[in-house]
């Protein structure tokens, strides 16, 4: 091949680069966008209940403000909504508002320049802090001293859901299971499997996905520590007697076959192959026609009373994308969609708890009509979420890997597993998790 043909080949290779550069989206003028009104798009989760709420809210808005039309779309499909949103941020194709933002992924979206600080709008900080109270600071930059790149929207407090018929068959009183400490929880689990009432006591996903610890280890850790986050003050917290107590409970559940090491190939709760699961209020809509269920707070080692038990919030929040060209409309729609009336509508249609203070007093009629949700509303005041950290997903993945090796599969003892996880996570936290 002579030089000229090499040059031709090189040109063919660089042409796409030039095209990619030329075609890349130009950034939005932030100053102009901040005061601009016009049509916007919003993304909501693709579950039926949230779509119904989204349709109701956008229709109400569009009827009043046709010049600032809001288009409702589902969050694009992906392995997880976090990945779909991350990709859209990089491509500059995110909707103006995302009503499904995970607090774990959000700090990295901020770092990537993908989100707008909501306190830059008039009344932004007041709206967020008045609506969510002291819980709001957990979702802010610098614990509330900095900006809010997310509006804390709704939570799904994790509790223990149980099948009352299986409990009764196992000789456990469904009205008062008495499984509120690690010891009694383990005894009850042994009873369920030992009597043959169910093949397993509980069946969380034993998989390696980074978020699975939110539905096994973390709720019990939050209960046991009265709300201590996985990472606080720049260091991990779980390599401690409290963390060890929780991990040992899970090791016992797996080692004794009370929780299966394989992922369920069907819905174990509906099929009756498990007696319990850790679930949020969404589970009521899923199971109300299928099983006779009950709920109890997640257990702790020290018999913390249900009124004091703190659990995992599993919240989803709202974020405004920096690709938004009509940010004033986006902010006003966000305020509208998170008003007391619209939050009531969310509660009514989805059964998920708006992250606002005094839910029971704010919506007394709803809870009078839906007593099943009262425990969740009460629990919603005592929740904690993932720590606000850059690189949070890598940190949770490292934790999951070690928890999986020790508590689920017993390849190392749980003390060693927690210690190794802390040793990996601490440098990531200190470096801002690159």
């Amino acid at each position, binding site marked *: 091949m002579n030089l000229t043909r090499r040059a031709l080949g090189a040109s063919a290779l660089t042409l796409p680069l030039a095209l990619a550069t030329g075609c890349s989206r130009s950034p939005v003028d932030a100053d102009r966008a901040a005061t601009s009104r016009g049509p916007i798009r919003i993304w909501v989760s693709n579950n039926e209940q949230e779509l119904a709420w989204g349709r109701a809210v956008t229709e109400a808005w569009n009827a009043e403000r046709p010049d600032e039309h809001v288009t409702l779309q589902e969050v694009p499909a992906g392995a997880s909504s976090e990945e779909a949103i991350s990709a859209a941020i990089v491509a500059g194709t995110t909707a103006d508002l995302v009503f499904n933002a995970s607090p774990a992924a959000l700090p990295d979206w901020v770092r990537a320049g993908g989100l707008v600080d909501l306190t830059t709008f008039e009344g932004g900080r007041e709206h967020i802090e008045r609506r969510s109270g002291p819980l709001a600071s957990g979702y802010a930059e610098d614990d509330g001293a900095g900006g809010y790149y997310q509006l804390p929207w709704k939570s799904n407090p994790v509790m223990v859901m149980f099948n009352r018929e299986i409990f009764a068959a196992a000789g456990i009183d469904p009205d008062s299971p008495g499984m509120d400490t690690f010891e009694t929880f383990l005894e009850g689990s042994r009873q369920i499997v030992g009597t043959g009432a169910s093949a397993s006591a509980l069946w969380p996903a034993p998989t*390696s996905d980074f978020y699975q610890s939110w539905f096994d280890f973390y709720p019990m850790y939050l209960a046991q520590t009265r709300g201590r986050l996985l990472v606080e003050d720049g260091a991990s917290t779980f390599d401690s007697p409290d963390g060890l107590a929780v991990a040992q409970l899970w090791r016992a559940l797996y080692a004794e076959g009370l929780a299966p090491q394989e992922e369920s190939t069907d819905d174990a709760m509906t099929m009756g192959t498990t007696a319990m699961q850790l679930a949020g209020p969404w589970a009521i809509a899923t199971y109300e026609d299928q099983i006779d269920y009950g709920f109890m707070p997640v257990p702790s080692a020290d018999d913390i009373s249900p009124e004091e038990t703190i659990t995992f919030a599993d919240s989803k929040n709202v974020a405004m994308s920096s690709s938004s060209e009509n940010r004033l409309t986006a902010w006003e729609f966000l305020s509208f969609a998170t008003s007391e009336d619209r939050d009531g509508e969310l509660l009514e249609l989805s059964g998920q708890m708006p992250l606002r203070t005094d839910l029971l007093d704010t919506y007394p009629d709803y809870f009078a009509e839906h007593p099943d949700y009262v425990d969740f509303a009460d629990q919603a005041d005592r929740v904690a979420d993932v720590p606000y950290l850059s690189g949070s997903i890598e940190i949770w993945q490292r934790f999951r890997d070690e928890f999986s090796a020790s508590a*689920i599969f017993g390849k190392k003892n749980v003390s060693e597993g927690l210690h190794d996880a802390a040793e990996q996570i601490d440098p990531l936290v200190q470096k801002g998790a690159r």
Partner: protein
Amino acid sequence: MTTPNTTRTAGVTNPTGAARPEGAEPGPRTGGSGASHGPLRRLLGAQPLGLGLSLPYILFLATVMAYPLGYAVYISFFDYVFTAPGMDMDHPFVGLENYRIALTDPRVLQSFGNIAVFLVINVPLTVILSMVFASALNSVTRWAAAFRVAFYVPYVTASVSLIGVWMLLFSQDGLVNTILGPLAPEPSWLVNDALAMPSIALFVTWKQLGFYILLFLAALQNVPGELYESASTDGAGILQRFRHITVPGLRATTMLVLILSIITGANLFTEPYLLTSGGGPDGASTSPVLMIYQKGIQQGNPDVASAIGVMLVILVGVLSLASTRLTKER
């Protein structure tokens, strides 16, 4: 001596294959019109139409293969994160730091070890089974099409649906363990850290076999039947004919199958992701591509993910080269 159709001499095509005497003027091209050999000809080559027809594919390859590959190599040397359009962020040069991070991450090393287990099981099985089955199918005179389809169906069926079937077969209460009874492994196949990767290797071997059988079947059509007849006349048995005629006759295809199965194995993602739920148990079936996905897409570390990718490309290159050398005709 074999006479090639064309022989290049100093960039000039000589259709006769004869060397042009030094200093002689090139003669007219066969079927040509005596086109000039100017700069345009040098740029576009002897067959400009061919280049024109190839251009869309060259552009496609450059866009979806060469550019991303080059870009990945580039970002593997920088502290890099993806950003929103217009976001001004420094991406400092960090040299080999991303490679150091990748190589000191036990999960990354484990993923390369896992893929070695996979290749050791999958590649020989693929080559041997596909060659043997192709030879057998080539001899079958009745129901040949039905047999070929039976082998080919798994290859054209979506991995996701086949994986669902395997999960049911190999789960703790699945059919395989029911048949094995007390001989069933504990923990079960897909959650057993010693058996998870071999299970995946067997699954992939079974799934891909149809494609490689097809390659060997095509190659077998070029092995002269007279050779088998002569060998039979000389008293050679089935095994001797297979060893001394079939195996050497399929050498080029064997090399292709070997390289393709190495590349396919190194790209392993779907099976560990779905069959063993994201690379479990305890990372025993995590592959390097799954690590790239986790680091680059889930965790927002495209720089480290790129470093893993570059290492994987180099590894596959080395393995392919070694395979070529091993199977090269001496």
